[in-house]
């Protein structure tokens, strides 16, 4: 068998920091590399791992051929774990002493010196102007600073716990396996329904994925605790999409939603303007919109007959049809065309900016008169999103924002 290499850089950390110092101060940015792995968990934090670790095979007799092979991996692991524990113990002791010293320096009671006091003291004694907070000196519990240790993936008998251990990405692939079998189950029930001629029952059983999206690659990595690449992520999404597109996907709604994140529904709630009721029961909602440098205040009255007044003029305020079409969109999506009256005060900017500002304000004002699903529809159409583009400034040495001066060699 190959000589075991230490997979953790614990040792390196040890050598890299100043040994036996009075103040346990670590410049944490040096250890960022060691923190980089997400898939680390402190051994003692996992109950299984803890048990596994501390039941050392002391009672084992002379190992058989099988036992020898196993214990090699396990023994190596346990040696490393013990070294880690010893080191951490020493570090903790060091930290406690350092803390008392610090309290003395600061002239406070060492027994009631909390972590907050430590932070304050460090900031006072070692002021740092570094921009990145991670780069500033810290003094913290060693368990927070040193990288955590990964739990063993296999038992004492040397058999891995996971049946897809050898694929390197067991969690990821077992999720794919789960999706596949869920899809198979759906297909089976679909076939059965087809055979029994109960197709009408399938209506409306598909899962509506609107207002949510697949979790990101980074989130998937964190969830799986595995180093998943983009290609594998795409594969995952493809497979999930296949599950979602099945007519009976609603049955697996809970499973699907585990892997999706919903999109800012709460923001929508706060954006709905208040409705004022005027005399005669006419409702009025006011909202503002901006685009480029234009600002618009839009008042929407319901019920109405479709009148549109912009700065005291009707739609002839915009001679070009393009801008009228811009205004048309929110009314179309909310299906309120011809059912509301609109009054607009708009200022600054050109026609494009003004039309865009009115559109945003109108969309926001219309939220007061529509149902939730229409709100969602409007959000998906992009009506409630502010266009953040602005005029780009002119740069010195250039003709405009991007355009360069004409350059001729000679």
């Amino acid at each position, binding site marked *: *068998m*190959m000589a*075991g*290499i230490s*997979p953790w850089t614990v040792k390196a950390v040890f050598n890299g920091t100043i040994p036996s110092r009075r103040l346990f101060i670590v410049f944490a940015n040096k250890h960022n590399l060691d923190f980089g792995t997400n898939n680390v968990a402190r051994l003692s934090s996992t109950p299984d791992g803890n048990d596994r670790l501390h039941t050392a095979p002391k009672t084992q*007799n*002379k190992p*058989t051929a*099988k036992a020898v092979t196993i214990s*090699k*991996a396990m023994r*190596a*692991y346990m040696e490393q774990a013990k070294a880690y524990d010893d080191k951490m113990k020493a570090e903790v002791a060091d930290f406690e002493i350092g803390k008392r010293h610090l309290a003395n320096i600061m002239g406070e009671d060492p027994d009631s010196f909390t972590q907050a006091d430590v932070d304050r003291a460090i900031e006072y004694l070692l002021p740092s102007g570094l921009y990145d907070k991670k780069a500033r000196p810290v003094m913290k519990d060693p368990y927070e600073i040193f990288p955590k240790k*990964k739990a*063993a*993936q*296999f038992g004492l*008998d*040397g*058999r*891995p716990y996971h*049946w*897809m*251990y*050898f*694929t*390197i*990405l067991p969690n990821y*692939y077992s999720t794919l*396996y789960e999706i*596949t*079998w869920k899809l*198979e189950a759906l297909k089976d029930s679909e076939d059965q329904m087809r055979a029994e001629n109960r197709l009408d029952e399938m209506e409306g059983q598909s899962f509506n994925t609107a207002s949510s999206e697949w979790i990101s690659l980074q989130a998937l990595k964190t969830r799986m605790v595995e180093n998943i690449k983009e290609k594998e992520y795409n594969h995952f999404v493809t497979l999930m999409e296949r599950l979602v597109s099945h007519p009976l996907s609603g049955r697996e709604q809970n499973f699907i939603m585990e892997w999706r994140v919903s999109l800012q529904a709460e923001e929508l709630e706060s954006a709905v303007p208040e409705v004022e009721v005027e005399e005669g029961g006419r409702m009025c909602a006011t909202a503002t919109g901006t685009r480029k440098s234009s600002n618009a205040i839009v008042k929407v009255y319901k019920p109405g007959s479709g009148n549109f007044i912009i700065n005291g003029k009707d739609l002839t305020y915009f001679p070009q049809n393009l801008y009228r079409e811009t205004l048309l969109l929110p009314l179309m999506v909310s299906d309120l065309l011809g059912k509301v009256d609109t009054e607009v005060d708009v200022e600054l900017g050109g026609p494009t900016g003004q039309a865009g500002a009115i559109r945003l304000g109108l969309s926001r004002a219309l939220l007061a008169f529509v149902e939730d699903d229409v709100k969602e529809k409007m959000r998906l159409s992009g009506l409630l999103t502010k266009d953040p583009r602005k005029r780009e400034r002119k740069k010195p040495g250039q003709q405009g924002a991007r355009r360069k001066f004409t350059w001729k060699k000679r």
Partner: protein
Amino acid sequence: MAASIGKVLLRANSVPANLSILCREHQLTCSVRSLSTSQRWTSRISPAWFQQESVQVPTPHPATDTREATLNATLQHEDYFGVKDLATLRDLFNARVHLGHNSGLRHPSMSPYIFGARQGCDIIDLEQTLPLLQQALNVTGHIVYRGGMVLFLSRQMQVLPWVERLARELGEYSHCRPWQRGTFTNSSSLFGTLPIYPELCIFLGTQDTVFETHRGVTEASKLLIPTVGIVDTNCDVDPITYPVPGNDDSPVALHFYMHLFRSVILKAKEKRKADGVK
């Protein structure tokens, strides 16, 4: 090398009562296989050789000794797991195991196992397949019986979920996903621990794509892991320890193999439990 075997032989000859007790304990009704039937054995285990080796071997611990004796006694049995009853020639035929690939795709190393070509399609000689299959199943059973890890490998998309489910249900391991180069040979850096290897790799199809041999075949061979492989007429037989010539594409055939392996592994585990092997 043959120390343990020799040891057992010695014990079996010198202390027949011991063995008979073992036999009774484990209900070994069948007669112990006569050593003289296996020519290889007789040639390897020459007395002189045996004497030399036996000197170096320290006296084993009594507990281990019993275990080894139990294990080795099962090896004397010709068909300890009853694999001969699992499949007949007719079953193989019905499962379309005989159907090979187009003759143009034939791998030269497969030629001894091919019965003939019917209308441009190779037909595998099932009379050769059957004993090979039985031997492979027997070996699988013994390795499982001894607590070995079994890894199922396949790159056939059509049966992929079934193979994985099989492995999961059996408490064994599967690898039907893209093979990362060095999964065996570079495992310490890929897994971050000391390497763990399966004791047996079962390839339900030794091709990765249509044109490539599965990389696991080579890696297993390098790391001295025995392999059982279903080899079709377009596959290379040589790197496989226990090749089973047969159709590796039809779902019917693949499900048939899976059924066989499932049966034998379950049986081996059952026996292991009954025999109290640890």
